[in-house]
């Protein structure tokens, strides 16, 4: 067999500036959420639930001229219709920003399969699914549990901790580093990669490209190390994987690695943090889950519904009328699954957190062909993280007065979460 020379040169290609459609960065205060919304605004981070409820009542599809023009549906029905409609909506870009990637990036996109359209999407996704079945992710449960205990052990002797950065964040970082086979000592870098990819949206295209290049160089280093020292992990799996009788293109391998790293971290970090935030503020629910461990899996689904972290996005592929508005080709469309999950047309007591809710058809992991491929992994991490915390720290509360912050952008969760222990 010949030497694998796919990764001799970096697969990272700077976009041709002539092909990028750039928009002026508009980061001033929001004048009206219905006509000038910004998901990058601190108000949105803090009050997203109230904003969605307000918009659902009066719009229900909001618009903004920011980002070159974007739509924000808020009803379950509209979010679902867009998620199912791959004829009129493309996943070529899934993070709304101030430039649009070139049309010919479809159907693969930069980070397949989340950025891919049918029919390529189906084949690229099929490669990933076996690693993320419920049965396969269960193999990570013991080490995840041990890791959660080690984080709690480090709280010894303290009465105030930041549950966002000292607990929730570390769990998905460690799990995905293990699955990809990356060195544990590299994990502090991952937080920076994630922030650059998801929260740096209003930075200039040059800055965003530079940070993507740093991420891709890191991933390329890992690929080369795995070519020299193959092992039983997702990186070696992707290097060896084949599609249509050929090894994957180098940018497919590295793009999918980027996806697994970025998408696996911020999201689960947010879900764990938001659940702990809820329990810190609601002693009745906390006590009940401490006393009734069997209820925790049901409660996890309710936390996922009520505090779903992920809003996806699409670009309009062909002009289309939806939810009473005319969406034009190349408009951005946000897909706020968390807003859909709070639609009273779809859920009883939609604005309440009911930890023993039995019927819970929520859309936290998306709907249709792009259902989060890591959903079983995320559920395992969230359940184990809450299990260990509740067993070890049954008494805790929100430290009033200490700084608390929710992230801006498409992934919503606590980034500072001061908790009093005991």
């Amino acid at each position, binding site marked *: 067999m010949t030497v694998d020379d796919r990764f001799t040169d970096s697969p990272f290609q700077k976009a041709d500036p002539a092909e990028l459609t750039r928009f002026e960065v508009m980061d001033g205060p929001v004048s009206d959420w219905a006509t000038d919304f910004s998901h990058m605004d601190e108000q949105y981070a803090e009050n997203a639930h109230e904003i969605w409820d307000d918009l659902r009542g009066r719009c229900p599809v909001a618009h903004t001229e920011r980002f070159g023009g974007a739509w924000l549906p808020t009803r379950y029905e509209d979010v679902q219709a867009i998620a199912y409609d791959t004829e009129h909506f493309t996943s070529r870009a899934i993070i709304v920003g101030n430039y649009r990637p070139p049309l010919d990036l479809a159907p693969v996109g930069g980070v397949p399969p989340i950025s891919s359209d049918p029919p390529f999407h189906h084949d690229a996704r*099929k490669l990933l*699914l*076996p690693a*993320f*079945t*419920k*049965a396969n992710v269960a193999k990570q449960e013991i080490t995840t549990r041990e890791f959660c205990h080690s984080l709690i052990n480090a709280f010894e002797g303290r009465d105030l901790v930041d549950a966002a950065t000292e607990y929730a964040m570390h769990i998905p970082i460690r799990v995905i580093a293990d699955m990809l086979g990356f060195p544990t000592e590299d994990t502090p870098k991952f937080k920076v990669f994630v922030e650059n990819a998801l929260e740096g949206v209003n930075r200039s295209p040059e800055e965003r490209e530079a940070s993507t290049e740093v991420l891709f160089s890191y991933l390329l280093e890992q690929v080369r190390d795995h070519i020299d020292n193959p092992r039983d992990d997702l990186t070696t799996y992707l290097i060896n994987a084949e599609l249509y009788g050929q090894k994957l293109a180098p940018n497919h391998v590295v793009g999918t690695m980027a996806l697994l790293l970025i998408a696996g971290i911020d999201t689960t970090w947010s879900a764990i943090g938001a659940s702990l935030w809820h329990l810190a503020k609601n002693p009745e629910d906390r006590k009940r889950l401490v006393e009734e461990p069997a209820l925790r*899996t049901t409660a996890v*689904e309710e936390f996922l519904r009520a505090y779903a972290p992920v809003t996806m996005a699409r670009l309009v592929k062909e002009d289309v009328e939806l939810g009473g508005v005319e969406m034009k080709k190349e408009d951005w469309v946000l897909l706020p699954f968390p807003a859909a999950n709070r639609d009273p047309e779809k859920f009883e007591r939609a604005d309440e957190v009911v930890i023993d809710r*039995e*019927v*819970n*058809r*929520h*859309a936290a*992991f998306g*709907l*249709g*062909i792009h*259902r989060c491929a890591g*959903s*079983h992994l995320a*559920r395992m991490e969230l359940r184990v993280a809450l299990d260990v915390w509740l067993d070890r720290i049954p008494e805790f509360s929100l430290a009033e007065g200490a700084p608390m912050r929710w992230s801006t952008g498409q992934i919503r969760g606590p980034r500072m979460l001061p908790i009093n222990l005991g």
Partner: protein
Amino acid sequence: MKVQIDSQLCQGHGRCYDLAPDLFGEDDEGYATLTALTADGNVPEGREGDIRLAAANCPESAVLVHEEALNDRR
């Protein structure tokens, strides 16, 4: 009662096999399957509630429940 998985609709969320792991399973890609207990589409007696709950929790409405056994309608 009869149960079916609509494989065109199922996206592998896994709510059915989370809630009733003996009545539903997952294939190698995480898509839902019936199990030995439900393989012929017949719901074991006394498990109708579990089947209805799984169906009511499927985000894609891919768990199809026929309240009367299909044969009864003929």
